[in-house]
């Protein structure tokens, strides 16, 4: 796991609390340029998908982890219910 991935994970844990699940995987051979982020939180409840993503982008930007730092990021932003359904599947 890379430093950038850890930072992203921590920033999300703080800002989307209470978080059921959060994970940030570095898919870029450790250089932090390509990340896969998954967050399960009810902060996303009743929020349209695009607004969920804008919220994540905003929080990462404010933490200095915007797209000038991270080349590519895949974001899965689920409510707790959605996350549990996927686990059950």
């Amino acid at each position: 796991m890379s430093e950038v991935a850890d930072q992203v994970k921590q920033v999300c844990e703080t800002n989307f609390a209470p978080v059921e699940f959060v994970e940030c995987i570095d898919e870029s051979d450790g250089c932090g340029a390509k990340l896969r982020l998954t967050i399960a939180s009810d902060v996303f409840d009743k929020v349209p998908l695009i607004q969920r993503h804008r919220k994540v982008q905003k929080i990462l930007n404010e933490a200095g982890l915007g797209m000038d730092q991270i080349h590519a990021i895949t974001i899965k932003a689920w409510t707790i219910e959605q996350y549990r359904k996927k686990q059950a599947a």
Partner: protein
Amino acid sequence: MMSLNLLSRAAARSARISTARVGPVSFFSDDSHSDFAPKRKVVADDDEAQKMIHEHVNNNRIMLYMKGNPSMPMCGFSATVVKVLQDQGVDFSSVNVLDYPAIREGVKKYSDWPTIPQLYVDGEFIGGCDIITGMQESGELTELLQEEEKKE
């Protein structure tokens, strides 16, 4: 009025494709091919880029800004969106932002969204790869695109 020579059209309706072909196909229609020959239009400045993008998204029902083009995407995320649109069987227009740096930066400003690909439907920014695949899974995308079809 500036002409828009940037666009490539990719049509992937299975119904129109002969049974000899396997799977969804994108193609450039023959009679417009010369329009899309490498004729780089110079985009002078930011304002011009914003105007062009506004025209693109309002004159083309389904408009995709991507890296590469539908027959040869140059990025995994762009390739994924192309595939989703082809699976939906809808006509769409696209611009290869790798050929137009001013458009590449311009669309990010236009939609206030930091990445490529960017899909617009009926003039509205819908999202990038994650959102499009998410909407595909939930059925929202079919609903959105079919709604647009009915408006024709």
